[in-house]
């Protein structure tokens, strides 16, 4: 594991190395948030509101006098955490539903995949907004809504991989060896599904992060006092002409992390996709 990471670092160009560093910073910020923040991210100080960057407040303060750097660091945890939960939920739904369809085949497959097609026909944001409308606002509901509006792509990929593997002889051989259906799926099919699926997921992480922040920006996700980048952007809106830096910092944090995830996702795909490797002549 460690060796493959260091190999990856060796082969990567500077944008990918930058992305990896950025993600390390982000993960550290998320994990060590409470110990890193120079100020309490929720401490209101109306006397010192809308301060410019200074030595005590490196990135300045917002309209309630809260320290922006502290809020950015605390927001990393919320963003990364919600992305991780959303992603796991999507993968779980995709693997279970797509895997069942591909594994059972026939009529069951047809019925499941036509239901999946219904989810695929809606624009994801519209579907997510509709689901939040039904479930109500809040971070948990936003996560559920995003997962429910995105799993169908994963289900389709999983199904097609299962279909292509199902009639391979090593699966036949495992059945002849008396392996039960569940074990056949977990032991022989799942490992083969996981690597292409992780590539797809790493390409999607940035997208999901934007979704969470976007919905929070609209006031549907994380509620007001919690530090979250989308909420910070939303709070800063009214000061766009007088204090544009208030918008700049959370925007920059979002831009850098989404871009890092995308760059890394591309690099992982190039590394793991055997077809691309053939074309590149590795």
């Amino acid at each position: 594991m460690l060796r493959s990471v260091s190999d990856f670092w060796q082969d990567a160009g500077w944008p990918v190395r930058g992305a990896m560093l950025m993600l390390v910073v982000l993960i550290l910020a998320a994990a060590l948030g409470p110990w890193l923040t120079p100020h309490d991210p929720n401490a209101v100080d109306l006397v010192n509101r809308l301060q410019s960057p200074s030595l005590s407040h490196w990135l300045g303060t917002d309209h309630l006098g809260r320290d922006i750097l502290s809020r950015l660091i605390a927001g990393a945890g919320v963003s990364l955490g919600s992305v991780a939960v959303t992603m796991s939920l999507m993968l779980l739904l995709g693997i279970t539903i797509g895997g069942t369809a591909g594994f059972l085949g026939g009529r069951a497959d047809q019925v499941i995949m036509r239901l999946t097609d219904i989810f695929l026909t809606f624009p994801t944001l519209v579907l997510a907004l509709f689901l939040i409308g039904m479930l109500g606002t809040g971070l948990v509901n936003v996560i559920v809504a995003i997962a429910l509006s995105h799993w169908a792509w994963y289900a389709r990929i999983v199904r097609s991989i299962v279909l292509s593997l199902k009639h391979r002889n090593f699966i036949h051989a495992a059945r002849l060896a008396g392996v039960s259906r569940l074990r056949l799926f977990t032991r022989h099919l799942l490992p083969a599904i996981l690597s292409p699926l992780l590539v797809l997921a790493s390409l999607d992480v940035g997208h999901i992060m934007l979704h969470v922040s976007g919905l929070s920006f609209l006031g549907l996700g994380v509620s007001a006092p919690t530090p979250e980048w989308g909420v910070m952007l939303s709070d800063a809106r009214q000061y766009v002409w007088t204090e544009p830096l208030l918008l700049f910092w959370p925007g920059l944090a979002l831009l850098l992390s989404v871009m890092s995830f995308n760059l890394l996702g591309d690099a992982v795909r190039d590394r793991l996709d055997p077809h691309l490797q053939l074309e590149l002549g590795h």
Partner: protein
Amino acid sequence: MSLLAARGVHHGYRRFSLVGAGRVTPVLESVDLDIAPGETLALLGRSGCGKSTLSRLLVGLETPTSGEVRFEDRPLQNLAKTQWQALRRSVQMVFQDPLGAVNPRARVAEIIGEPLEHLCELKGTARRDRVVELLEAVGLDAGDADKYPQQMSGGQLQRVCIARALAPRPKLIILDEAVSNLDLHLQIRMLSLFEQLQREHEVAYLFITHDLRLVERFCSRVVVMEAGRIVENTPVTRPLRLTTHEGRALQDAVLPALPSQMRIAH
């Protein structure tokens, strides 16, 4: 009593569709076949005539569209769970392409150990010992147990597959072109192992093959298939004499082993 039998088996592949009935492409038509304990049978036929489909039906990997496959005179559809286990233990198969027939993420010990675990309930060191015993029986080393399939040659891997099929001590082994990719020396070694098992445990074999020398030397009965039907089912004579048009066409298509046997038309 036959060990495994096909009775009026028809099979086709249907394309499923939500609206209306899908079209069915027939692959097998009214196939009857009996395999007795301890018998050595050869199945000949051109590519695409349904040999492999028939073998998948016989081991119960697929269910025929109509007709039935019977294991010890009980139709496969009616088998209870314990009887399925008995079928799996009794009938094993070796596939044509060894690299496709093993999980690339499993070690040789796990590949051979899988039937031992699920069919024979062997655990821990007992399983390990049996794996080594099987590896040695097919001419591999105990050290090969920890290798991954990618680290082995095609011939070695084919012997791993043969070892896996032998693992639950089956009464019938179906070999789909399974010795044809071994060199002559290894072929002879595998065939003598098969003969020994046949003498000691009355194991039956179904060879799906193109190799007529193998049929002549090793098999007692030959079945010829053409376009999903069995066209000839006859005891093997030495030299092999097939009477039907399809059988002779197959025989003529194969080059004789030695050039002197070639009849040159003047």
